[in-house]
């Protein structure tokens, strides 16, 4: 069930929220159980065949986590290794088995053939969430092992399919808090507003850009200079609005129920360098990769050579997490290379004694432009169905496929791209806009000077805007809503 679907908005969520409020007077036992059942229904509604996979994963990881906590210090490391291995094996089977078989069959002249394995929705997200739980259990960070709370933490429907990737303690502390079950007008007002902002981003900003993306990435049709740039730019904006729109909707829905989710986007295209980009884009995945992969590998504690290697490994695996395709590996590798260059440049700047803490406005703009360009090249590789196509599009962007006339592209396209650019680079993000009623677990992001007047407050003006955005999005929505891009990961 998609957050943008009629069934979800008109029937499912209102029923869940109203009954949740009804059950909330009896505390977590009733309300939490209701939320858990609703979440399982949400997951099983479209793909009932995958529900057993989710349930099995929850039961297995709960028992492993319980055992690690119970037998801490007495073989818990072995239990953790077993738990992580089995999780990764399950993920590998569903997500990468076909890819590996296809990759190595020619080299090893394997005779066996592996049929396509259906990929359970959200498996990457709920597997990573639970690996983090097992590691936290081993680190002694897990204090609550209530089975319903655990199952709800994993399956909680606002984040289940495409994140954010949560820490166990972030949610269980909220689930335990009796204050969360009291209805608060602030949560309703902010939750509904943030949800509407996400709905608008998805339907009115992301979806219309899809028509400009597809032609550029069609195999066998090398795009010209403008076609390649339009395709790459459109995809960069489409992916951002699609995924951040999803996250806004998830945040809004969760807030309507009384719980806060961590922030997942902080204006990533305004990043001043590539390391800054990864602190702003899909922040909970970056956090996971940092806490559970980069730091355990040694992080930056073992010299600059080892640090660069750790970054490369982390980014390659982060790329592969997105899917079983060499393009994702290359994309991860490319970002690893960017980070290495950034690291070397930073060291060089420190050695030269340059003060990079207060760049000029021109310096900032240049930094943002260079970073965005690097990210843009990465998105071409990320979006392309294969490396050959990515290369063709990049050649097109360099003008090697010829330069076509601009007139054929249509005026609406430029308006869309310009509007997207203004929103991405100049408008306040949700955290800045909603700082009067912070919808996230994280602290609010201070706004720029010119953004300060645009802060949301429960006024008639903002009410009118929210209602207008809702109806513009709703009227623009296709009969069959399009799925979120990150659902495929």
């Amino acid at each position, binding site marked *: 069930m998609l957050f943008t679907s*009629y069934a979800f*908005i*008109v029937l499912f969520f*209102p029923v869940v929220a109203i009954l949740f409020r009804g059950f909330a007077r009896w505390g977590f036992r009733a309300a939490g159980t209701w939320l858990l059942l609703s979440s399982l229904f949400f997951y099983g509604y479209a793909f009932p065949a995958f529900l057993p996979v989710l349930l099995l994963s929850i039961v297995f990881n709960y028992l492993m986590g319980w055992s690690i906590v119970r037998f801490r210090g007495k073989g818990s490391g072995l239990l953790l290794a077993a738990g992580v291995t089995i999780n990764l094996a399950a993920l590998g089977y569903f997500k990468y088995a076909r890819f590996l078989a296809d990759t190595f069959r020619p080299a090893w002249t394997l005779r066996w053939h592996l049929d396509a394995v259906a990929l359970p929705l959200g498996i990457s997200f709920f597997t990573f969430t639970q690996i983090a739980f097992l590691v936290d259990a081993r680190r002694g960070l897990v204090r609550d092992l209530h089975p319903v709370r655990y199952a709800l933490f994993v399956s909680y429907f606002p984040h289940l399919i495409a994140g954010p990737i949560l820490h166990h303690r972030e949610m269980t502390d909220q689930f335990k808090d009796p204050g969360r079950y009291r209805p608060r*007008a*602030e949560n*309703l*007002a902010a939750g*509904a*507003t943030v949800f*509407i902002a996400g709905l608008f981003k998805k339907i009115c900003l992301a979806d219309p850009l899809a028509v400009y993306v597809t032609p550029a990435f069609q195999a066998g049709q090398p795009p010209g200079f403008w076609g390649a740039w339009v395709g790459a730019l459109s995809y960069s904006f489409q992916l951002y609005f699609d995924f951040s729109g999803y996250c806004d909707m998830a945040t809004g829905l969760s807030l309507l129920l009384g719980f806060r989710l961590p922030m997942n986007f902080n204006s990533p295209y305004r990043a001043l360098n590539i390391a800054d980009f990864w602190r702003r884009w899909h922040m909970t995945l970056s956090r996971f990769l940092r806490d559970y992969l980069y730091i355990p590998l040694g992080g930056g504690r073992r010299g600059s050579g080892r640090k660069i290697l750790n970054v490369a490994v982390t980014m390659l695996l982060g790329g592969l997490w997105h899917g079983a395709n060499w393009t994702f590996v290359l994309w991860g590798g490319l970002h690893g290379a960017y980070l290495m260059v950034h690291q070397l440049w930073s060291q060089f700047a420190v050695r030269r004694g340059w003060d990079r803490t207060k760049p000029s406005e021109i310096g900032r703009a240049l930094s943002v432009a260079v970073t965005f360009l690097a990210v843009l090249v990465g998105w071409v590789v990320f979006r392309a169905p294969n490396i050959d196509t990515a290369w063709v599009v990049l050649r097109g962007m360099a003008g090697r496929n010829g330069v076509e006339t601009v007139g054929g592209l249509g005026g609406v396209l430029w308006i869309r791209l310009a509007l997207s650019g203004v929103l991405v680079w100049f408008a306040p993000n949700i955290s800045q806009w909603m700082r009067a009623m912070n919808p996230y677990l994280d602290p609010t992001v201070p706004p720029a000077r010119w953004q300060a007047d645009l802060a949301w407050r*429960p*006024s008639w003006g*903002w*009410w009118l805007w*929210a*209602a207008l955005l*809702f*109806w513009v999005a*709703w*009227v623009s*929505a296709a*009969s069959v809503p399009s799925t979120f891009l990150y659902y495929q990961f």
Partner: protein
Amino acid sequence: MRRYAALLLLVSLGPLWTTEVWFRIHPQAFYFRPWEYFDDLAYRTDDLTAEWDGMEYGDRTRDNLFLHQEGRKTRVTTDPGGFRSIPRVAAIYPVVMHGESNLFGSGCGDSETLPWKLSDRLGLPVFNASRVDLYAFLGRKSMPRPTWVVDCVIESWLDARFDISLVGQRTEKLKYPTESAWTAENAVPVERYRFQNLLGRWCRGLWKDLGELHQAGYDPGRLARVDFQPYRRTSRDLEEPIRLIVKRKKWMDRHGIRYLFIPLPSKWVIEGPGVDPFTSNYTRELVERLRREGVPSIDLDPAFRAQAGKLKLFYDYDTHLNAAGFDLAAGEISDFLRGQDLSKGR
């Protein structure tokens, strides 16, 4: 804060819930025409009767919101097989009428349809087999062969591209009945009652209204007429229809059924300004040629032209005949059939 939250939820979810409930209680309010409703909903939902008791509007102006609307309350019912109701139900029908939307009685109540009026005039059962594949229909085990089959096709359909096999076919999506008209799929088309779809339709309609008003200098008296679909016939437009109609007559002969072909008058030819002479005389020429080929046929145009100034024979914003038009046609057809043997086949 409380007021903000309550009003935002109300203004966003309120209309959606209202239309959802409204649709459940009165789905006809969301349909423009009975047969849309029948196609989409009534015959796909087991417990919904195929009965329309509501408003219909001009077929040609469905994209407008306020302009050119000719609302009329109609009652449209069908039998369980999906065939339009008739006054006399029988085991064997001496006359079966076949045709397209005009014969179904688009825009008309049950008792205003051509088969109903013909049945009243003849005092005999007349079956309304509109909007079905004729050969499949005649092959039905439950329907003994009739004495007469009367094919009624609006004259505007008869041209060089005419395909007789499409007369009566509804949509490609939904094939019409042989034994039973419908397949129950229990599908409710959510697009019909989504408030955003309604809102979108209203907005587009209002935009079209405003565009037309702007073109007319905001003088409703100068609005362009939308009730005609002008066309021009040539001699090539005679050959294909005649070939196909003669072929159908021969099939009927082989199966012992008498056959009558009636080109229903077109609004453009009867009332339209500046119709060229060939198009104006097309029906007469067609009927004469058919008769020479041995196909009984009736030219209704003279009777319609004679009454055109005195009676309104077509709907205002619609190319379909209205009750008065069907009354006139039924008189002409009954005059012809009364002189024939209606009791048995050839």
